Structure formats: C-alpha cells, structure tokens
C-alpha cells in the first residue's frame, strides 16, 4: 500500500469522465485500471495488430493526436476515445485475375483519385508512415513505392476515418503490397528450388533412415555431427 501512494497519479479523461491513473501505465492498462473490460479493441497488446487505435488531445492543445493504446503511456490531462473498428468495405478481387497495368490500383479503388493531398492521413498515423505519399504513388501506378512506404501499416483504420475524400488508405496499401509481391518483387529462386526438392522426394530416404534408428543411435549421430 505504501508503494502505491508514492507513484504519482495523473488525470486521464476516458470518454469525458475523469480517472486518476498511476503514471507509467499504458493507455490500455489505464482503461483496465479504471474498470473497463476489453471485449473489442484489444488484440496482441504488442503494437502489431492495430486493434487499439486511440485518439486524444492534451490540455490546452487544439491538436489532435493518435496512438496505439498498448504502446503509449498516460500523460496528465489526456482526453481520449478509442476507435476499435473502422467501417470500410474491402473490394473483393481475385489475385489470379489481376495484372499491373498502370491503373491497377485505381481500378479496385477509384476513390484514390479524390485525394486532395491534405495530409490528414499522415498526421494521424500512429506508425508515422508517409500515408499521403503512398496513396499518391498508387494514383500514378508506382506499385513499388506504395508497397515499400506502406510496409509497416498495422491497419488500425485511423487514416480512413480522417480522410475527407473517404479513401481507405490501408486497403489500398494492402493491395499494393500484394501486387508487389506477386508481380514486381524478384522471385526467390532458391525457395522454389528447395520446395521442388522436397516435393520430388529427395530427403525421404534420409528421413526414413533416421526414423528407423534407436534413440541411442541418434544420440551418437548427433554427437558426431560435422561442425563447421
């Protein structure tokens, strides 16, 4: 009890209601400390799944800030809300039927042509990605740039929420990465070779031999293995 009193408490406003939270907790832990139980909006708790998108403001600051709740610690006066879901239809496409004609991304998501370069998406991205740049690259058919810039996207959906042109940036980035992987990135020939080798049954003989050995024989083989 004595230790708890020594940790400074900060005011955090969750959907308008004030709570006193020990400083040093992440926003996600803060919500649970305040008594909220997560049924949506929590996933990996490690900054990778994008489920815990949070928007907040600080005291006396008009600027809107964004964060992943599991990765950000509380600050005094934080005024927040969480956005566990973004309504965004994903286009259904068959990867086998797509090609990378220069308007490939425009064909599935023609709303990218509405982009006015306002940069709201970039400003809100909790991963600090160059979102406007990859949408613009998609508009002009530069699949490699779009795939490379959007690589670290966790699909939290905040960009789609803020976009005045109603683009779903993260879906566009996902399609760009898929097209890049299928059509543009150099093929890993050694992987194909290895898979072919397995399929042709080459290692089968050795595996059968190992399976037929006794544990003592295997231990012996292990001790005598070649070490480079």
């Amino acid at each position, binding site marked *: 009890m004595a230790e708890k009193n020594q940790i400074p408490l900060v005011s955090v406003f969750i959907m308008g209601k004030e709570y006193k939270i020990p400083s040093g907790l992440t926003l996600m832990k803060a919500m649970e400390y305040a008594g909220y139980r997560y049924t949506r909006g929590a996933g990996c708790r490690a900054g990778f799944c994008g489920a815990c998108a949070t928007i907040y403001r600080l005291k006396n600051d008009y600027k809107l800030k964004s964060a992943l709740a599991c990765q950000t610690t509380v600050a005094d006066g934080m005024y927040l809300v969480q956005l566990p879901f973004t309504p965004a239809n994903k286009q259904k496409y068959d990867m086998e039927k797509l090609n990378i*004609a*220069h*308007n*490939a991304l*425009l*064909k599935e998501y*023609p*709303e990218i*042509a*509405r982009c006015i370069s306002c940069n709201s998406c970039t400003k809100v991205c909790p991963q600090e990605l160059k979102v406007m740049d990859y949408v613009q690259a998609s*508009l*002009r058919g530069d699949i490699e740039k779009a795939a490379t810039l959007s690589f670290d996207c966790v699909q939290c959906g905040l960009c789609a929420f803020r976009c005045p042109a109603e683009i779903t940036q993260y879906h566009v980035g996902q399609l760009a990465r898929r097209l890049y992987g299928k059509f543009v990135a150099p093929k890993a020939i050694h992987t194909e070779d290895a898979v072919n080798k397995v399929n042709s049954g080459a290692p089968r003989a050795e595996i059968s031999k190992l399976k037929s050995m006794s544990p003592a024989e295997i231990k012996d083989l292990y001790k005598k293995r070649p070490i480079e």
Partner: protein
Amino acid sequence: MVFTVSEKGLELRKTVEEISGENIFKCYQCGKCSATCPVVDSMDMAPNKVIRLVQTGDMEVLNQNTFWVCAACFTCSARCPRSVDIAKIMEGLRNVKLRNKQDFINIYSKEFIEKLIEEIPQMAIVSAIKKGVW
C-alpha cells in the same frame, strides 16, 4: 409585365454570385458564349439561357445538365464581351447542387471500371471527380 422573384430564387442567385464571385447582371444575353461552346450540342439548355434563368431566379436551372456537361475549357469566358467569367458561374451552379448533398458522383459506374479505367489518363479521372461529374 411584372415579374416577381421567389424567395428561393433570390437565395439561389445570391449563392451563385457568392460562390462564383461574378456579377450575374453583367450578362446582356448576347449569346456569344453559347455560340462558341464546344459541347453545347450535348446540353439541355444553352449557357446564356442558363444565366438568364439565374438572373430571373428560376429554380428550373438546377435541373439542367448544362453545367455537368461543361468541359471547363474557358472558351466562353475568353469570348464574353462583358468579361463575365461564365466558367465560374457554371462552377457556382455545380457547387450549389454538390453542397446540398446532391452528388452527381457515381464512382462505381460498372462499365467504366471494367473497360476504360485501365487506359484512361489519370488527369481525366481526377478532373471528372473535381467537377463532380463522376
């Protein structure tokens, strides 16, 4: 003949003048803009007639396809003897409709997506969207 402009008509005129920044009454109906417009044959109503309807505050003007077919080529503005910027007035009328949530934008027109989108220059798609016609 006495002619009274309705409340709505007055508001329409005021909005178009505000958005376009043009004085609607400078137009004296010479018809040069309509004569020179390259796409006038596809319009329900010629540009000079559309301006007349705005002058008299006739709400019918909002049902014409004139300002949607407009290609924004600025020829009318270049030819007008009174330097009325007709292109701006057309933009004003488009915006009256768009700002009232009467979207002309039909972004998933199937035929276009399936056939043309792969070969059309991006500039056509972006300008069609900016003018609210697609």
